[in-house]
């Protein structure tokens, strides 16, 4: 259960990126999982450059990799998605897949990353017993960091000018444009925000399974997408809720049924949601208009 919650908080962070991007440009960003990988790699290099794994270096790693990924997010958006904003949706989706393949295999090809998994430096494992539950310090960090980032995100979305603009664009892009909102800036900002969250999730994920490799982003990316759909895609609290549910479901399956079936269960959940309530738990039912 504790494992599930900490894993779930990582999924929630990734799902937030999916949901925000979808809410604003109506695009499933297939490359989101690979941004996570880039974040983990950036974190890995920062940590190795700064020496031992201590809270300070971990903080430095978060800072560096979130910045790197935010820049990456903006670049991906500007180069690959912006020219296609008015094209049919399927073209943008295919481009997103292209970006994903490019990032993965670019990482394989680059000599300083390479196909071999690298051990991610972690802090010495200490377990704390707490009301009868055993929690490792990595899990505490995971949980705390995610909660802090979620609070920061909520503040940004609800109480800043940019957040207001984001909500406006996701509500109605054309009307927002008419109201004098710089839609391009808002979209870039959203991508940067999503990518930064993915980077944080990448570091957390690779601290929990201490290794870094080019294809590490695919599975957490997909599961986080399921989480986003479960919570209602486009809804921020939904993504958080969905992330926790998926994380807990996966850990329980691994613990009590079979570890190989865990992935199948997650996608099974996706199919069940699509049958029962396609708009997700907290999603709004939107009628399509001509």
């Amino acid at each position, binding site marked *: 259960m504790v494992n599930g919650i900490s894993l779930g908080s990582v999924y929630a962070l990734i799902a937030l990126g999916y949901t925000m991007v979808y809410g604003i440009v109506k695009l*499933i960003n297939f490359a989101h999982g690979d941004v996570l990988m880039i974040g983990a790699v950036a974190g890995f290099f920062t940590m190795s450059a700064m020496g031992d794994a201590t809270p300070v270096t971990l903080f430095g790693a978060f800072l560096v990799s979130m910045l790197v990924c935010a820049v990456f997010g903006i670049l991906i958006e500007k180069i*690959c998605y912006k*020219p*296609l904003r008015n*094209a*049919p*949706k*399927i*073209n*943008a*989706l*295919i*481009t997103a*897949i*292209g*970006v*994903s*393949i*490019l*990032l*993965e*295999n*670019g990482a*394989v*090809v680059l000599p300083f990353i390479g*196909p071999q998994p690298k051990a991610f430096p972690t802090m010495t494992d200490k377990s704390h017993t707490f009301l009868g539950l055993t929690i490792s310090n990595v899990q505490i960090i995971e949980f705390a960091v995610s909660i802090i980032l979620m609070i920061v995100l909520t503040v940004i979305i609800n109480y800043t000018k940019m957040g207001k603009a984001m909500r406006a664009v996701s509500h109605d892009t054309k009307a927002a444009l008419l109201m004098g909102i710089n839609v391009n800036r808002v979209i870039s900002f959203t991508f940067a925000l999503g990518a930064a969250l993915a980077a944080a999730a990448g570091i957390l994920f690779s601290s929990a399974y201490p290794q870094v490799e080019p294809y590490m982003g*695919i599975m957490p990316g*997909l599961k986080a*997408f*399921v989480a986003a*759909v479960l919570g209602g895609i486009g809804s921020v609290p939904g993504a958080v809720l969905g992330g926790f549910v998926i994380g807990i479901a996966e850990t329980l399956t691994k613990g009590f049924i079979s570890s*190989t*079936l865990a*992935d*199948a269960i*997650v*996608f*099974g959940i*996706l*199919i069940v949601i*699509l*049958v029962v309530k*396609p708009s997700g738990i907290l999603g709004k039912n939107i009628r*399509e208009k*001509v």
Partner: protein
Amino acid sequence: MGLLKGKIFNASILLIVSFIIFAVLLGLIYTGVINEYYALILTLAGINTIVALGLNLITGFTGQLVLGQAGFMMVGAYTTGIILIRFDVPIFAAIIAGGIVAGIFGLFIGIPTLRLRGDYLAITTLGFGEILRVIINNLDNLTGGASGLKGIPTFTDDYLMKPVYSFIWVFWFCVLAILIVGNLIRSSHGRAIISIREDEIAANSMGINVSFYKMFAFIMSAFLAGVGGGLYALLQQYLDPKSTGFLSSVFFVVYVVFGGLGSITGTVVSTVVLTYMQEVLRFLGSYRLVFFGLLLIVMMIFWPKGLFGTKELSIVKPIRKFLAKVFKLKGFEEDSGPVSKSSVQSGVK
């Protein structure tokens, strides 16, 4: 004249042309001018063409992105393989059975996802490929588990003749697939399918049963993938659960996008060319995939229509023109039948 202008004439031109190409290629393989390795690539290209045609039907013509085509292909492949290992049935029946089982899988995935608008189909089919791998890995005594399914019989017992026989089977299945998809697209059902791609809401208000046609195209596409998979099982004689994954499906998306979403000839040309390139570029290792990723992005941004766009190359038209000139027949060069286009496939091979 009446007979000569009609569909029968077009169909017979097609048959004759594909028969000539078939005879030439077969002769080249038989005499060893095309060696075994290239014959294998050619056969593989034929199989990929069948699967990619299925994908084009749902993605190119219906406008629904599917990312699990390799999954359906492997369903067909495993079905055919298992049937042939366990029972004594004709090869043809086993291949068709592979297609039908893949179609049934398509039905089950289509029911929840296709009635929704949006991009859910892409993700669900992607997830399907992943689940399938888990399932195949766990059904040890049926599918051979993680070590793969071994000992599938091939098209013939004579080892030396295998390239020739597999080429014959795959070639005619490929022609059949092209004919089926080509005729389907030109029928009223095909028009309905294309109208969904152009505008779903408008199609719906015109009285087209959108979810039925989406379902129909999707099942048809899964069926073709399954048939391709059945041929693949017979050609390779060994199946690996890894090949159900995301990456193999993406290759089919690349074929279809490169050839042009909504062009049968485009799919055929690009599949053959890219299958060949994939083999030739093997020495590049991982750079090959970097190249394919870049290709997708660049194509979508600068050349979203692909090689052919939605156009088709016709082989019947030039022949008609030629005959009209030789025999001085009036009005003969007009292309009147529905079967006419889409046979350039073989021309490229």
